[in-house]
């Protein structure tokens, strides 16, 4: 007797759901934008690489081209020819190279952060209340829920994690990544010499202004799950407060959000069914300048002019005072020192 093969009901119905989700039901033609501004980001789905990439309208800093890291397979032929002419070898598809954004590279969107349900907390208050990155109202209106995991209890009695109310089948997920602009610059550094008992030298502190090496001439873009700039110094004397002066200035260019279809699980992968939205932060070309390195102000040395020993004592006294004048000069330079944090402004 022949067996009659059958198809399970749920398999059939899943296929029907898939078809119904993919049928186009509406075409919307967006209003023509006024102009395409510098730094404008346009995400697109790479069907071959199965990932999201973006292109960016070229922007300039001080009239200089900006670079971005990209894999050779996403680089323009102009980039590849330039690298070959420069003698760069082993240009295989997955190698990451620096392309000028004027060369129209496609830039990968790597890791993203979760916003809303499933997000990691960004802080905790004194009454044990977790805080999260807020979901923008625009996405709340589209069905993204706020993160709702909270903790209860106390440090002494024990802490438990509590889930929020059920999200429902129509919930949508939100992921994001940030694109930032970096500009290398010299930084102010304290250098400490511990002194030595062997030669009797004393410990001392020096202030220097330089870069540790590898300072890039061109500004460059970075893509990261979250933009975390170093804290802004409170005052120009921040170095004396122990604050480290970083060797770069940075600025956020844009945040790229990805919105899932309805009913996506927390673990759903970022694929072509997600919709990208871009929030641009800069719209004009930029200028940048670091702080000016303070001039080494010559100090008035300490002297003692005396008629003792018919004036012969004066050079001896000057020789004794010489190391103290040196220390005084260094102290003056340290007090004048400041970090070289620069500023961007638009053109």
């Amino acid at each position: 007797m022949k067996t009659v093969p059958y198809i399970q009901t749920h398999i059939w119905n899943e296929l029907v759901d898939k078809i119904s989700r993919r049928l186009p039901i509406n075409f919307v033609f967006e209003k023509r934008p006024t102009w395409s501004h510098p730094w404008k980001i346009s995400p697109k789905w790479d069907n071959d690489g199965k990932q999201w990439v973006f292109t960016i309208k070229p922007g300039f800093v001080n009239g200089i081209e900006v670079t971005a890291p990209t894999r050779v397979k996403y680089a323009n032929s102009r980039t590849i020819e330039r690298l070959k002419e420069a003698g760069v070898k082993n240009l295989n598809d997955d190698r990451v190279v620096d392309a000028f954004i004027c060369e129209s590279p496609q830039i990968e969107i790597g890791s993203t952060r979760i916003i809303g349900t499933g997000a990691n907390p960004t802080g905790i208050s004194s009454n044990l209340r977790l805080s999260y990155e807020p979901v923008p109202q625009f996405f709340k209106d589209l069905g993204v829920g706020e993160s709702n995991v909270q903790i209860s209890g106390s440090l002494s009695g024990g802490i438990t994690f509590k889930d929020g109310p059920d999200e429902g089948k129509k919930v949508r997920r939100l992921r994001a990544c940030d694109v930032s602009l970096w500009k290398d610059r010299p930084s102010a550094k304290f250098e400490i010499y511990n002194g030595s008992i062997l030669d009797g030298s004393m410990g001392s502190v020096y202030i220097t202004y330089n870069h540790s090496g590898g300072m890039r001439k061109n500004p460059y873009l970075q893509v990261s799950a979250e933009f975390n700039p170093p804290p802004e110094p409170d005052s120009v004397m921040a170095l004396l407060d122990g604050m480290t002066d970083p060797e770069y200035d940075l600025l956020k260019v844009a945040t790229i959000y990805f919105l899932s279809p309805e009913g996506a699980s927390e673990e759903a992968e970022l694929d072509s069914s997600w919709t990208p939205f871009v929030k641009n932060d800069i719209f004009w070309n930029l200028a940048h300048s670091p702080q000016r390195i303070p001039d080494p102000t010559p100090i008035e040395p300490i002297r003692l002019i005396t008629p003792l020993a018919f004036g012969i004592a004066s050079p001896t006294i000057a020789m004794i005072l010489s190391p103290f004048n040196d220390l005084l000069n260094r102290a003056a330079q340290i007090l004048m020192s400041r970090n070289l944090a620069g500023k961007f402004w638009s053109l």
Partner: protein
Amino acid sequence: MNIEQIKVRNGESIQKAWDRLVKWVESLKVQPNDMVSINETPNGVIVKVRREAKTFNHPFKVYGSTETIRVTSGLVNGQVPYINDKLEGWRRIDNRKSDGGKYDPEKTIPEMEIDSGKTKENKTYICIEVESNDEGTIKNPETDLRIVQLADPEGEDKKKGYYPIALLYLDKSGKKIEQFFQVVHHNLRYVRQKQASENKKVKGNQHLFFPL
């Protein structure tokens, strides 16, 4: 996939037909790109089509052909720069006479030829060149306020101020323009800064440009 391949034939195995059907459904997807975005809902896909942006005609817009460039009118300290027209020499970029009057009969907009000797790595900059007195006054725009082509946007003559308004990508020969990239979108204010000098050597950049 050909629709005829999806259809079943009498007596065909259900499993094989099903597998072909599933594969076909997987291919039924509107793919997003930089002009098209999709919003998937349980009832179907909403397809959004982005249109090309309008043209923004701003000051100092550099445009042209593969061998010559033109610059739309713009002001530096309220004065109009001059450009070296390939036929008639230095002329105002707004296509007017030195006194601001219109030409009669009207002339074609001045255009400058690209010099392949002023390029670097198949790129060249179109810059504003300013020469002023110590107070920053531009006395004669015809000689002191010009649109020039440079390989290095910082220029060579430190007595003059240079500011890039556009970057041009050239072809491999370095003679034909392939792409224009605009740097400046506004009129400009030029300030000449007096710097403290040590031993009569002026330090730092004296020439500052700000958008208006």
